[in-house]
């Protein structure tokens, strides 16, 4: 069982010939419907749908405003440690890259948290590389307890855990999980993850479900765009989100559409994903899952992020830094990837108000 069963149903799907058969009238019919099926979603991701991107945008905008209003939740990432035993060929933190690695001690976590909280943000996402030795669950738990004093929502983007470990972190105050599969295509996944525990595709794929079973409130899934065909990866991301929403209706499910950014090691993304492609993906996902969250990080540049505000995005990062201890300064740290939008929380808030959107700093109340 699990999402892998659904993945396998489409594993040998004839993508290209299917896309060839989709016509303009098909897209118009889909856009006239209130609810759409997985194959309708695939059609909205097809090359044929590109001509209808403005119609898709109008509908996606209306659906988003009805569901979420003129609001945008803001959060920021906090990198706790960059130690990693994996060999993901596309990542700046991968084990083969030589740089001075570090992790925040608990005092530093407190200092970074205080600095971030002073900007008004109440939602934080903590990240680590995969190292059970350097950043074990007990360390994460201690960090979460500190962060709970400053933030009303603490999410984790760390290596996949066992269900009872998720339970332990939820007990300490974690309410959200971000877990990118990176690549849903199983063959491509194997090639991009040559060594380390992350080679285990299924263990990662089932991680969001383990967190749901453990009682997490929000789950965010995603494929790293640029590693494989974006249309099929977007399709599987949507399917995965829909699967989790169906199985765990109490969980708020969302997705991120992260595009590859330059990083240490100089890996070249094999697939180019244009702004137009990214927009088509966001719109199609919104129409497929009207209540699904869409999170947009500072991987995207400011001008593009501003234009994506009305198109279905529900959550954006602000005041971001992808290096360990990057906010409190001190020694020069290495970033996981280069960010494209370095605006502060205050600047992001002003931009949102100017566009007729209310920045939401707090959208959950921790009840620990």
């Amino acid at each position, binding site marked *: 069982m699990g999402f892998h069963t659904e993945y396998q149903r489409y594993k040998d799907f004839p993508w290209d010939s299917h896309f060839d058969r989709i016509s303009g009238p098909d897209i118009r019919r889909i856009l006239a419907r209130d609810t759409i099926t997985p194959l309708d979603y695939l059609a909205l991701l097809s090359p044929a749908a590109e001509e209808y991107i403005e119609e898709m945008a109008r509908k996606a905008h209306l659906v988003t405003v*009805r569901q979420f209003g003129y609001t945008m939740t803001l959060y920021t990432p906090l990198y706790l440690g960059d130690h990693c035993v994996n060999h993901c060929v596309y990542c700046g933190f991968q084990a083969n890259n030589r740089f001075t690695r570090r992790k925040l001690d608990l005092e530093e976590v407190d200092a970074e948290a205080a600095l971030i909280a002073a900007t008004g943000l*109440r939602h934080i996402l903590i990240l680590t590389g995969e190292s059970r030795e350097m950043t074990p669950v007990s360390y994460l738990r201690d960090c979460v307890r500190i962060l709970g004093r400053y933030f009303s929502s603490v999410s984790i983007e760390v290596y996949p855990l066992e269900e009872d470990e998720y339970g332990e972190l939820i007990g300490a105050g974690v309410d959200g999980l971000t877990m990118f599969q990176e690549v849903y295509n199983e063959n491509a996944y194997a090639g991009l993850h040559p060594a380390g525990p992350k080679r285990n595709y299924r263990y990662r794929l089932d991680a969001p479900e383990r967190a749901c079973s453990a009682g997490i409130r929000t789950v965010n899934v995603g494929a790293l765009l640029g590693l494989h065909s974006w249309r099929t990866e977007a399709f599987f991301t949507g399917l995965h989100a829909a699967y989790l929403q*169906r199985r765990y209706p*109490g969980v708020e499910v969302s997705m991120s559409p992260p595009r590859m950014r330059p990083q240490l090691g100089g890996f070249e993304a094999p697939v180019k994903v244009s702004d137009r492609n990214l927009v088509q993906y966001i719109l199609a996902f919104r129409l497929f899952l009207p209540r699904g969250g869409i999170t947009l990080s500072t991987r995207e540049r400011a001008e593009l992020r501003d234009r994506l505000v009305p198109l279905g995005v529900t959550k954006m990062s602000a005041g971001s830094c992808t290096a360990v201890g990057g906010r409190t300064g001190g020694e020069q740290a290495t970033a996981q990837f280069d960010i494209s939008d370095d605006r502060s929380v205050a600047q992001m808030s002003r931009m949102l108000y100017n566009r*007729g959107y209310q920045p*939401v700093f*707090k959208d959950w*109340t921790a009840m620990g």
Partner: protein
Amino acid sequence: MTNDALVIGGRPLRSRLFMGTGKFPDNRLIPRAVEASGTEVVTVAVRRVDFDAGEENMAAHVPAGCVLLPNTSGARNAAEAVRIARLARAAGCGDWVKIEVINDNRYLLPDNFETVQATAVLAAEGFIVLPYMSPDLEAARRLADAGAAAVMPLGSPIGSNRGLRTRELLQILIEESALPVIVDAGLGKPSEAAEAMEMGAAAVLVNTAIATARDPVAMARAFSLAVRAGRTAFLSGPAPVREEAYASSPLTGFLYDEE
């Protein structure tokens, strides 16, 4: 009409329009919309309230004199709803609470079973409990037994703007419920609010349709007028609706021929 106050929790309310505060493009619009609508009960999601946040603190935008109705949006079960309600009271939000227990993020439909449980706990603690519910008569009876001050059945799913899709069930609740029936969720247009009031609803709660209108302040006023029109119509005893048009009395007209 002068004595037509709706009394909830011992408080007489002249306006039968309750307003929600989510989804506005700017919280500073809230007091203006409240003023334009004349509403006296304003609901605020506790999950969104940061009592230390000044400008970004939504509760700070609710005008004095209005009843602040904290809601438990985000609660997935009775225990979470109870905890959120207690947090709100401890933070100085008063005794009123709107229970929302939703364990379905796809349709945002309430869980009546858990809602009854949370209502019983909070009513016993002295809260004035207004539970959001699916319009089910048996659940309404249980909510009354549990100590609710009113019931808030949905017209259609939250944010759908689809109007009174649950009309038949709402009518049954209005006729049978011992508690005031406040139609909550799904009202997309003032005419739909008027319709709910004509049916005999005690009040309506509107959020999305006002907050996401091009001019929220003007739309708040429009809803206020519609609610008053609907209420007046209900009190005036609307003429019965006929299935066919009758020009005269074709079957019994002969009885009058002799006169």
